[in-house]
């Protein structure tokens, strides 16, 4: 809708764009503003009282357990991002470069199937495998080793994070790898670059944007997840999402829970912006 550099507003386009804008305003921007306001409210006799007091921020930010939870959540999300991206990459590469289009379509289908089932159910079913008397330890004890505690450990949490994000990350990586120009890869081989080296020297830089976006999704999903750290990690130690639940339960402290929530959102914004900046950074 541009003529001679003058931008004209199309009524037609605007009409169709409006529902999206309204939805975002009503269900995202307003609640977010409300959430932010909530952090300044007070709780008196288990009742929230509107106000403007920084006490919630001071209280939460001065508690050691808050920063412990923050550090733990951030570290676990980072670990999850690294493990997921590294596990997904060879798989996505194989699908992008080594398989026929038909196989790729089937693979894509199987990668999407997990989303048919609620993540809660999938995470819960891991308990059957990971418990001390579960399937895996049962097999291990049959050969005389174990049991290795896996449920209610960080390992359990990580398994949950992988369940949540691995299929998505493979799909996102696959999309970006599939658009890599094969000619450029061959050109690299032709100029003396070995096959494995070409992956890092040519394929990764070419697919960089997609790979970073996939990793960012993984971080966002893991950082905010409640199910895995609760059901598979046993809340030991609690993540920020568990902290939110605990805070609301103990003495109706919704404003302090809001402080945690706002901190999480701010963190994710910071991470997402950093990631995008990294993805689209011009070469040095």
């Amino acid at each position, binding site marked *: 809708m541009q003529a001679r550099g003058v931008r004209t507003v199309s009524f037609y386009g605007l009409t169709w764009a409006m529902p999206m804008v309204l939805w975002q305003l009503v269900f995202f921007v307003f609640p977010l503003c409300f959430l932010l306001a909530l952090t300044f409210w007070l709780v008196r006799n288990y009742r929230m009282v509107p106000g403007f007091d920084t006490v919630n921020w001071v209280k939460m930010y001065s508690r050691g357990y808050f920063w412990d939870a923050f550090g733990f959540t951030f570290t676990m999300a980072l670990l999850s991002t690294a493990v997921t991206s590294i596990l997904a990459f060879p798989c996505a590469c194989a699908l992008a470069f080594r398989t026929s289009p038909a196989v790729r379509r089937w693979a894509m289908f199987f990668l999407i199937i997990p989303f048919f089932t609620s993540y809660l159910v999938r995470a819960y079913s891991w308990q059957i495998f990971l418990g001390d008397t579960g399937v895996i330890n049962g097999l291990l004890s049959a050969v005389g080793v174990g049991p290795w505690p896996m449920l209610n450990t960080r390992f359990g949490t990580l398994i949950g994070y992988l369940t949540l994000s691995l299929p998505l990350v493979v799909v996102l990586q696959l999309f970006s790898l599939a658009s890599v120009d094969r000619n450029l890869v061959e050109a690299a081989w032709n100029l003396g670059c070995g096959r494995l080296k070409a992956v890092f020297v040519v394929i990764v830089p070419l697919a*960089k944007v997609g790979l970073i976006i996939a990793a960012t999704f993984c971080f966002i999903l893991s950082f905010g997840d409640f199910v895995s750290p609760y059901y598979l990690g046993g809340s030991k130690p609690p993540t920020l999402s568990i902290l939110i639940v605990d805070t609301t339960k103990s003495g109706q402290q919704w404003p302090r829970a809001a402080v945690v929530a706002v901190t999480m959102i701010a963190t994710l914004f910071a991470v997402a912006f950093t990631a995008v900046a990294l993805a689209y950074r011009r070469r040095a």
Partner: protein
Amino acid sequence: MPEPGHEPLVVFEGVTRRFGDTVAVERMDLAIGEGEFVAIMGSSGCGKTTTLRMLAGLERPSEGEIRIEGRRVNELSPAERDTPMVWQTLALFPFLDVRRNVEFGLRMRGIPAPARREKAMAWLDRMEIAELADRDVAQLSGGQRQRVALARALVTEPRILLLDEPMSALDANLVVRMQAVLARLQRDLGITFVYVTHSQSEAFAMADRVVIMSRGVVEQIGTPQQVYRSPANRFVAEFVGANNIISGIVTDYREGVVTAETALGMLRATVTGDVARTPGGGITFVVGADRIALSGQPAGAGNEVRLALISEEFIGSVVTLHFEASDGSPFRAQKQQRELDTLALEVGATMWASWPAEDVHVLPGE
């Protein structure tokens, strides 16, 4: 032409490449000498690109052997060969600037940064694009990219350079200029160029020898002159384009001159060497369109046919005249523009074409 006695730089020996049921290249024998400019030519799907890719190690021969410098390379990966290629798409790395693109091959060989920078700059200088060293590839024009691709391929000082239709994206003006650049570069460097193209003018303008392929088979290998004047078979004669192909029955053969009865009348050709023909046998004459003399009246000379003008086609100073012969078959003549001034050229006009018997090429085996 490879010297006899010692092994040429590149040898294809009975090389076949199949993709499933399709045969892309069939039993190819080809020897390419040191410092030779060889063009592999043919229409799309003829196997010329597959041939080049096998040389680069991007495809493996299904049968036969490829040797470079006397060494069998069938099993060598692309990275283990020194056969840089200039790609049809140029395949410059978009995430590297011009200088780093040129440095790539050196970097892969572990050359330290200062040395490779110096070499890359020297090559950019040689290609007259040194001032673009820090540019993004996306900011370059087609011709500039071409030069970057050449510099990138040549920076490792290979003995052989592969070029896969590198000019198909350039406009006609630039093609002519780049041809001059390439031809001079090849002479100066003295290395072997293997150039794949569907364009006859590119191949003929630059190559010492051309290899004409069709459907995976080599139809003829020879200098542009040989291929143009003495096509090995009907396919080559037609592919080269500017030829009239006339078949007939031999009526007489004596003193090196064969006479045949054709649809256009009795025609004669001087034949040399082993092309002895017996009366009653079939024969095919090839007459170059540029060897035709035209006139408005019959001159009574031998090898004269009557034609009707259909159209004229101007390409610069050269005009191609398209005729219809008395039997309805097409006939072509090529003339300099000024040679036509004395002729009345009107569509439908009757004209007479003649040519000397010495200028007729007899297709072997037809």
